[in-house]
């Protein structure tokens, strides 16, 4: 079949960064084509060029055999290119149908929402999607919003659909649903570019795979006959160990005990949460983002008030204690958002290393900081945790995401913790850095530490955790032991069903 899209020798130069370096991408009509690569490999840049958000420095785009110049998203839509962004481009305060017709050039001056709504519902029915066109987008679940986004693109005439990390926000069942829709679209002759870093999904759904590494495109490969290991190697440029070696599971005494904990708040507040974590185990918290994970961590670390129930750390009642008192119990916290909570971007690496211990000897005495010791300590952490930085005087904000996370990790783990709380510890990290962070967490467990791992990446929880608790709307739907790990069951629990 003829290619629907050819991007030839695309170069995009940002000030100081060559984001796309002679990238070539050929997509066959009626296929599902994966675009893979680590963070910063240039996937988003390439797709933003295709969708008209960036202008390429040089290169050629052929669409249906004709050269086109896309200067704005409007152009892209006119040519039949649609994009579903990772962060949905839907307006929560408007209704579904208002979102669908927003900015459509064919709109009459006075909108005819009724006829648009009828046509849209009919289109949804073709893909077995039931959508209330007059519902507010803010009232829809994430999965439904995504379906609205996809339908919206098709309604507006997309022939080529770009899906940017579409599975990141979905439960396993919703992923299956999405794949069904994608296959149906393919049968109807539509073309899909599927951006993902999840090896398994790409091999399941895609026909052809193109990997970007450091801004350069690798030769495309068919997904049939390609293995996960080969793909990972193409992405990183070296052999990667996808499995983590763990010591035997040998749980000790309780480190954390949550006893019927409630918090106040409207969204994702804790609702009767009880569980325990023992020495030498990793408890994974699975769940779709925004189902109380943040409140759970805030409650344990003293960042939000517990309205009912008790929290014990190593047998001491730490309910509603100050964050400092809790950290003094040898608790380490790797926050979900390292920019907001993990470090201060505008401070140097060595200053970030003492954010928690600065008031203690030997870091300071009599109110004066002991810079000699602080610098020695920082040098040690940088070396142990392999932080790539020009010096410990470098501003933390200037490091790459992976190295920033290593700064946080180094500070927290060098405090010799008994209990590590790790929230989305590899979010935004590439495969290499991910591998390292995982090794560190497992090492803590093997040393006899207790680890609470919160992640929305089910695969991460499945590989690392000894037990998995699934959260849904602030409740613990259930806790599974290793032998009961079952992706279907966990998926049901993530969606709030429990039989």
């Amino acid at each position, binding site marked *: 079949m003829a290619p629907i899209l050819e991007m030839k020798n695309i170069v995009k130069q940002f000030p100081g960064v060559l984001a796309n370096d002679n990238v070539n991408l050929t997509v066959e009509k009626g296929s599902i084509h994966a675009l893979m690569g680590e963070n910063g490999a240039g996937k988003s840049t390439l797709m933003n060029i295709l969708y008209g958000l960036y202008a390429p420095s040089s290169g050629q785009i052929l669409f249906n055999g004709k050269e086109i110049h896309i200067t704005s998203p409007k152009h892209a839509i006119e040519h039949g290119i649609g994009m579903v962004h990772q962060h949905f481009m839907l307006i929560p305060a408007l209704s579904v149908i208002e979102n669908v017709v927003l900015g459509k*050039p064919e709109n009459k001056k006075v*909108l005819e929402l009724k006829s648009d709504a009828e046509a849209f519902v009919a289109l949804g029915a073709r893909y077995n999607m039931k959508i209330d066109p007059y519902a507010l987008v803010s009232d829809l679940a994430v999965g439904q919003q995504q379906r609205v986004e996809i339908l919206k693109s098709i309604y507006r005439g997309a022939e080529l659909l770009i899906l940017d990390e579409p599975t990141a926000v979905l439960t396993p069942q919703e992923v299956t649903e999405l794949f069904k829709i994608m296959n149906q679209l393919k049968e109807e002759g539509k073309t899909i570019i599927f951006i993902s870093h999840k090896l398994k999904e790409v091999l399941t759904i895609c026909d052809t795979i193109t990997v970007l590494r450091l801004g350069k495109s690798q030769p495309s490969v068919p997904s049939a006959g390609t293995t996960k290991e080969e793909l990972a190697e193409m992405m990183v440029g070296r052999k990667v160990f996808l499995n983590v070696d763990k010591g035997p599971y040998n749980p000790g005494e309780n480190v954390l005990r949550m006893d019927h904990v409630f918090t106040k708040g409207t969204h994702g507040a804790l609702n009767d949460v009880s569980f325990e974590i023992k020495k030498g185990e990793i408890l994974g918290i699975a769940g779709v983002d925004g189902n109380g994970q943040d409140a759970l961590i805030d409650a344990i670390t003293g960042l939000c008030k517990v309205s009912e129930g008790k929290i014990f750390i190593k047998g001491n009642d730490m309910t509603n204690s100050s964050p400092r008192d809790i950290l003094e119990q040898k608790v380490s916290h790797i926050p979900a958002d390292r920019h907001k909570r993990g470090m201060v971007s505008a401070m140097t690496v060595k200053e970030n290393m003492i954010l928690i211990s600065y008031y203690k000897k030997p870091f300071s005495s009599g109110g004066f900081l002991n810079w000699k010791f602080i610098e020695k300590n920082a040098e040690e952490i940088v070396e142990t945790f392999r932080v790539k930085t020009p010096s410990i005087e470098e501003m933390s904000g200037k490091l790459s995401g992976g190295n920033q996370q290593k700064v946080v990790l180094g500070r927290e783990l060098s405090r010799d913790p008994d209990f590590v709380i790790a929230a989305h510890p590899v979010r935004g990290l590439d495969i290499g850095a991910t591998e390292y962070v995982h090794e560190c967490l497992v090492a803590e467990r093997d040393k006899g530490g207790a680890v609470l791992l919160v992640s929305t990446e089910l695969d991460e929880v499945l590989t690392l955790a000894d037990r998995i608790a699934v959260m849904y709307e602030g409740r613990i739907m259930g806790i599974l032991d290793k032998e009961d790990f079952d992706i279907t069951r966990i998926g049901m629990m993530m969606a709030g069903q429990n039989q």
Partner: protein
Amino acid sequence: MKQKKGLIIGVIVVLALLLIGLFAPENFKNTLASFIAQDLRIALPLAIAAAGLVFGERSGVLNLGAEGMMLTGALFTWIGTAMFAGNPWLGILVGMFSSLLIALLFGFLVITLRSNQTVIGVSMNILALGLTSTIYRVVQSMEMKITGFPSLSDLLAKIPGLGDVLTNKTAIGTQLALVDIPRIGSFLDTIFSQNIMIYIGIILIIFLNFVLFKTDLGLKVRAVGEYPKACDTMGINVYKIRYGSVLFSGLLTGLAGGLLVLDIKTFVENVTAGKGFIAIAAVIFGKYTPIGALGASLVFGGAQAVQYLIQAIGLKAPSDLMNMIPYIVTIVALAGFIGKTHVPAASTKPYTKE
């Protein structure tokens, strides 16, 4: 559903007026009629300004410079009207043009240069206060001939042929022919024989409500104030919509300032005295809809009209205390409403296109 609610309220109001007109004692009727007339008169500039500000706010720009734009519009309407031999129609166009220029400066600073909307808004007010006071002192010695807008009855009387049927000429001026209806005639005449701009204003506000909620343009305005980035990916020019909305809000605040001056038929320094801010309050109190803003303005206007009512009844209260009423009502209304209405999500946030 919503439209039905408006209809029901309208029917109730008309019925209530008829009942009062038919059965209430003469004294009460006169007081009430003049209260309603006062309320409409005071509320009109507030509602017009607020309706314009609704568009600015919905597009994500908080126009705290409304007070200054209103003041500028007021001064130049005054000068313009005098310039065109007392013609209020041409005069108010001059006023609207002047506030449009201030809005253009405001828009350039907050949309293109992405300056802080609060700071710039407040400085626009200071700029306008200084500018208008200075110009006023220069021109104040000249003789200014100002005529206000004609009333409905005056206008109807001018219609050839029909004029004599629709209106009566009496000793106190032209009245609507309604006045002949027994019992309720003069009551209705006081309420309905208003400045023509009140009718134009109410029709305009209903029209703007329609534009905001039923048209393609209105949808774009609402969307841009919620999630400009999404609009950008949909091929909508965020800057164009925001400029349009800000300029439109400038135009209407200028109109409001002009109405104020043409109502009292003179200009004094700082003639707006916080009315621009009350209009902003009316936007919030009215839940960011033009019709809601009209309702809120009537509440605020009513609070001021109460003063005349109290005087009419003969109650003795310090006038300073009386003057506080509208501001107190504004504070109470806002304190009760802020946080309960949905504020456009991108309000006051400058948009940067990548």
